[in-house]
C-alpha cells in the first residue's frame, strides 16, 4: 500500500493506528460520560446557578483544575496505582486509556461548563417561569440548547487526545506516536516518522471537519 515501507512496517502501522483509535475513542467516550454530569454539577452549583453551592463548587473546581494543570506525562505515571486498580495492569493500550480518560474528563468538563454557560440565562428563566423543574431545565433546556457547544467541545477533546495518546508509549500503550518514536526517531527511519505524522494530520483534520460540520448543521436552525 505504501511503497516506501516494508510489509512488516505496514502491519505495524495499521496496528498502531488501531491502538490510537482505541485509546482516543475509549478515553473520549469515558470523558463524555463522566465529564457531562461533572460539568452540569459545576454549572448548577456555581453562583447564580440552578442549585448554587460554594461548598460543592469550590472543591470540585479545584480537583478539575488540579488534574488539568498536571502535565500529562506526569499524571500518567503518578496515577499508576489507580490505573492498576481499574485496568488490572499499568502497561498496554487498555491501561493507557485510564490516564487518558482522567485527563480528558477534566479537560472536557471545563469545555462543557463553558458551553453550558453560553446558554442564555433568559431561556432558563423562561423555563422556570413555565413551571419547569430543575431536572427538566437540565434535560430539556440546558443540554439541548448547549448542544452545538458541547459537540465543539467533544471535537477539541478528541483532537487533544490524539496528541496525548502519543505519550502513551511511555507506559507501553502503543499507538502511532509510540511507533514514530521507536522507529522513526530511535531507529533513524524518517519515512516512518513522516508517515506517522501524515496519518496523525489526516486523523485530526478528519475529526475537526466532522465536528465542525455537525456543529454547523445544528447552529443553522
Amino acid at each position, binding site marked *: 500500500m505504501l511503497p516506501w515501507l516494508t510489509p512488516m512496517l505496514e502491519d505495524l502501522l495499521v496496528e498502531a493506528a488501531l491502538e490510537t483509535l482505541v485509546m482516543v475513542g475509549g478515553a473520549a467516550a469515558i470523558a463524555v460520560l463522566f465529564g457531562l454530569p461533572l460539568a452540569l454539577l459545576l454549572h448548577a452549583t456555581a453562583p447564580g446557578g440552578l442549585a448554587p453551592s460554594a461548598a460543592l463548587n469550590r472543591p470540585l473546581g479545584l480537583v478539575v483544575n488540579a488534574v488539568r494543570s498536571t502535565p500529562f506525562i506526569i499524571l500518567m505515571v503518578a496515577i499508576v496505582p489507580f490505573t492498576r486498580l481499574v485496568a488490572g495492569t499499568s502497561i498496554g493500550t487498555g491501561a493507557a486509556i485510564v490516564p487518558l480518560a482522567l485527563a480528558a474528563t477534566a479537560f472536557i468538563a471545563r469545555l462543557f461548563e463553558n458551553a453550558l454557560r453560553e446558554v*442564555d440565562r433568559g431561556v432558563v428563566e423562561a423555563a422556570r*417561569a*413555565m*413551571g419547569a*423543574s430543575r431536572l427538566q431545565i437540565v434535560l*430539556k433546556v440546558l443540554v439541548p*440548547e448547549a*448542544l452545538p457547544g458541547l459537540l465543539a467541545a467533544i471535537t477539541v477533546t478528541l483532537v487533544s487526545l490524539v496528541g496525548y495518546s502519543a505519550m502513551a508509549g511511555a507506559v507501553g500503550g502503543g499507538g502511532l506516536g509510540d511507533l514514530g518514536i521507536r522507529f522513526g526517531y530511535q531507529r533513524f527511519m524518517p519515512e516512518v516518522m513522516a508517515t506517522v505524522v501524515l496519518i496523525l494530520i489526516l486523523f485530526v483534520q478528519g475529526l475537526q471537519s466532522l465536528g465542525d460540520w455537525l456543529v454547523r448543521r445544528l447552529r443553522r436552525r
Partner: protein
Amino acid sequence: MMLDQPGPDLPVAAGRVPPAIRLTGLRRHFRGAPAPALDGISLEVAPGEVFGVIGRSGAGKSTLIRCVNLLERPDAGRVEVLGGDLTAEGEAGLRTARRGIGMVFQHFNLLASRTVAGNIAFPLEVAGVPRAEREARVAELLPLVGLAEKRDAWPAQLSGGQKQRVGIARALASAPSILLCDEATSALDPETTTEILGLLADLRSRLRLTVLLITHEMAVVKALCDRVAVLEAGRVIEQGPVFDVFTRPRAATTRRFVAEVIGHDVPPGTLAALPAPGPGEARRLLRVLFAGPHSTRAVVSEASRRFALDLNIVAGRIDAIGARPFGIMALAAYGVPEAVEAAILWMRGLGLTVDELAWEEG
C-alpha cells in the same frame, strides 16, 4: 404618596371580586446594592384588567414583575395570585402555580433548539400533557397569534415580531388566566410594537386575560392599559386609571412620562417670545384640560370676550385614551388680575381642569 383612584367600572374598587394579583408590602434589596430595588410595593390587579407599571430603568419594575411568579423571591411582603399566597408555597407548589401564569419576555427567550411548535408545546411538555393533546393545543394557538404558516420554522428564521408572537403563544399554551409582560415590545421597532400591542389587546378581550405589564414606554400604557402605576426608586409614586394619570399627572416623573406621548409641556423657546404684560396687567400660564361635557364648547373665545382677556395658545393637543377624547391646552393669559382669576373660576365651573404652570423661560 398619591391616592389610588380606580374608576367606578372596576370591580376591585367596588369590593365585589377579589383581585387576580395582590402584592402587599414587597421589599427586595439586592446584596451590595446601595438602595432597595423594591421598597414596600403594594398593588392590586383586578380580574380581566390590564395593569401597567411604568418606570425608568432601575426603578425596580423588572424585579417587581419577577416577584409576581416568584422568579425573584421578595425579602418581605406577600404575593397573592388568584387568592393563593405564592410566598407561602414550596418549590413544587410554586411550579404548579407558575403554570397558571403566562409570561412574555423582552428578548423572547425562545429555545433555539426547538421549532416554533416545539417552543409553544414546551410548557405543556413540562406539565406532562400527552403528545396528542399538546399538538392539538399548538394547532389551536398558531392561528391565534397569526403564525399558522410557521409551525416548523426555527426561531433563528423569524423576525422579532414573529418571535414575540411565538413567545405570546407559548405563554398562553397552558391556558393561564394571568399574563405577565416583561417589556414585551421594548426590543421591537415601532411598527411591530403596534402590531404586538394590537395582538395583546385582542387576546386580552378574547381570552379574558388579566395582564400585568411593565414598560418604560408611556405609549404602551396608553394603547393597552386600564390602570397604571408609576414606579420610582422602588416605590409606587402614583397610580390610577390611565385616563386620569394621563390627563392629570401629579408627580414630576409622571408628567415627564406623559409629556413623551402627549407632549403638553410648553415647547422650549415659546415663552421667551411672548410679550411682557402691560402696566397693571397680570400674565399667567394656564394648562386647561378639556374632558367631559364641555370639551366641544368654544371656551377660549368665550373666556376672552367675557373677561376681556388676551389668551395666547402656546401648546395644545387633542387625543383619546380608550375612546375617551380629551384636549389639553397651555394658555398664556393677559388681563386685569381679578379678571384672570374670575376666568379660571368660570372655566373650572364648566368642569374643565385648570392648573397654573410655572412661567419658566426656556
